[in-house]
């Protein structure tokens, strides 16, 4: 496609020299939209095949009936599996997962904020080193990293040796809730750091100077100026950590030993050993709705840091 074709799209040849009439501009806009769609097509196709279609199946299953043998009967549509969500055991699993996700998000926020803030004030070289440090864990397989934590946290492991050496006695964190939170915070920390860094970095430094000039001390400047202005990053990072934490399966399984049932493993159980596809599907739908609501809420309030 030549340059002039790109510029004028499929618009009528005679209009390319004459003035841009509203009709011409509309045609050009349509042509641009067509080209945009064409470029996005591979991504659309991928999402439809591997996300939209399976999700549609999950939604359909959630209203279906479980057969006696654990199969799916695509008739007799009902809300039974959604009614089961009200059961005490299910509510416990939901609340426990929610609590864990919130705790993980808060710890990530507390750890990531100072780090991200520090990244914005150091030299470019130091900043790049810090960014690489954040990214390095991604170069290793997720499972491998979780098993590494298993070794670190186990009794007689490095952490235990350290606490023993400084006289705090042996620690055995493995297969506890603490271990799960440590693992989740470790896994999702980069997702908090990066949006936070992006939003803090964007704050005009003269605003901080203005605040200092107007008699605010460091703490006041942070609370009244820096924190409010970095809110888009706080919200973006929180969603990016909260959403996967809520449905986390691998880390609670490996580091928590599956002792406390969380949403992720509960769903796996329904699709696996329990062979209750409709119930597993309804749980998944609930999880998806929570995640989508959080994401939509974020975009609604104008966030642009994802």
């Amino acid at each position: 496609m030549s340059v002039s074709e790109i510029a004028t799209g499929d618009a009528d040849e005679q209009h390319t020299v004459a003035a841009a009439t509203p009709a011409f501009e509309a045609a050009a806009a349509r042509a641009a939209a067509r080209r945009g769609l064409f470029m996005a097509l591979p991504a659309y196709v991928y999402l439809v095949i591997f996300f939209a279609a399976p999700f549609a199946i999950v939604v359909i299953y959630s209203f279906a009936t479980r057969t006696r043998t654990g199969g799916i009967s695509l008739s007799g549509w009902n809300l039974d599996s959604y009614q089961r969500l009200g059961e005490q055991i299910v509510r416990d699993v939901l609340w426990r997962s929610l609590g864990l996700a919130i705790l993980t998000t808060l710890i990530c926020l507390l750890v990531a904020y100072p780090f991200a803030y520090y990244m914005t004030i150091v030299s470019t070289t130091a900043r790049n080193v810090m960014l690489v440090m954040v990214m390095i864990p991604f170069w290793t397989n997720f499972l491998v990293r979780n098993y590494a934590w298993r070794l670190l946290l186990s009794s007689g492991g490095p952490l235990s040796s350290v606490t023993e050496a400084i006289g705090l006695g042996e620690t055995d964190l493995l297969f506890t809730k603490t271990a799960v939170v440590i693992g989740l915070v470790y896994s999702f920390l980069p997702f908090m750091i990066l949006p936070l860094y992006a939003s803090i970095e964007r704050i005009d430094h003269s605003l901080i100077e203005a605040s200092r000039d107007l008699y605010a001390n460091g703490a006041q400047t942070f609370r009244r100026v820096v924190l409010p202005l970095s809110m888009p990053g706080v919200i973006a990072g929180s969603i990016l950590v909260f959403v996967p934490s809520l449905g986390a399966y691998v880390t609670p399984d490996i580091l928590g030993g599956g002792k406390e049932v969380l949403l992720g493993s509960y769903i796996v159980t329904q699709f696996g050993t329990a062979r209750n596809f409709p119930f597993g599907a309804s749980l998944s739908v609930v999880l998806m709705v929570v995640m989508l609501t959080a994401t939509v809420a974020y975009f609604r309030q104008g966030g642009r840091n994802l």
Partner: protein
Amino acid sequence: MTATPAVEIRGITKRFDDVVAVDAIDMQIANGEFFAMLGPSGCGKTTTLRMIAGLEFPTEGSLKIFGDEVGTLPPHKRPVNTVFQSYALFPHMNVLDNVAFGLRMNGVDRTTARRRASEMIALVRLSGMENRRPAQMSGGQQQRVALARALVNEPKVLLLDEPLGALDLKLRQDMQLELKELQRRLGISFVFVTHDQEEALTMSDRIAVMNDGRLLQVGTPEEIYERPANRFVADFIGTTNLLDGTVVDGSTVCLANGTRVAARSEHPAGTMVAVCLRPERARVVTAGDGTESGIGGVIDTVTYVGNARVYTVRLDWMQLRVREENRPGAAPRESGDPVSVTWDMNAVTVVTE
């Protein structure tokens, strides 16, 4: 005047790594003075202002505000406020909260802070806009908010960093008058950084001209314009013709081409100097009409600027600009006319490097 100066700077130097931004400056700013720091970008004027504000700390030297040494005090402990170049209004707060910010941080209760902020907003003629966000205001309005936000704290010295730079010409001229009027009414010192020499000349009681981190001259606009301390000042302030030469005696300078012209100086004979001739102080006369003291040349271009004509006169070794007021009856000269350029002896200044 024996009163304590509002700002007293002695031997202030600021180094950033190896770069000397401000080089051993001495400066005194009197209370109630409209003081401009003028110079090209990178001359150290903004750094000097930021040191007074406490946003930079001097590497060496002493900085006093009303007699108190403030050299390394953080900004929130100084009795000064700043109007920032980009205004630096808090985008997440409305106008009222922006203006009340300093008072609130200073421990003034909310009701009082809001009342005083409203009064200040009225003073800068923005009443009714208290609930707007900065992004919803024009540049000129944002400028007033920035001014109100600084002044509401009743600073002893107001610092302004190129406050009018972002405004268009008409608005800038209005704001110049307004700022000047405000300063007279409040009676506090305004320290004003600008690279616009016209702005500095119109607004200031005194001007400090800086270049390369050094302070070249401090004086009233008239002193700076009429008696520039050196070649840079002469060149930077207004337009000027600089004719290189050497001093012959107290009243004569020998120009580069050998012409001797009348110019008073106190430099010893043989000093390399430049004769500073303002375009409006020079006259063009028709060549060969008996005036011997002039320099001969040919009119090159004629520019009509409404109230005057500006000629460029080509000499053997350089060009001169001469400005001639439009008076009824004055026959306009044309390109190619042979002329002679003359001036009164006391109309020129002799400057060195």
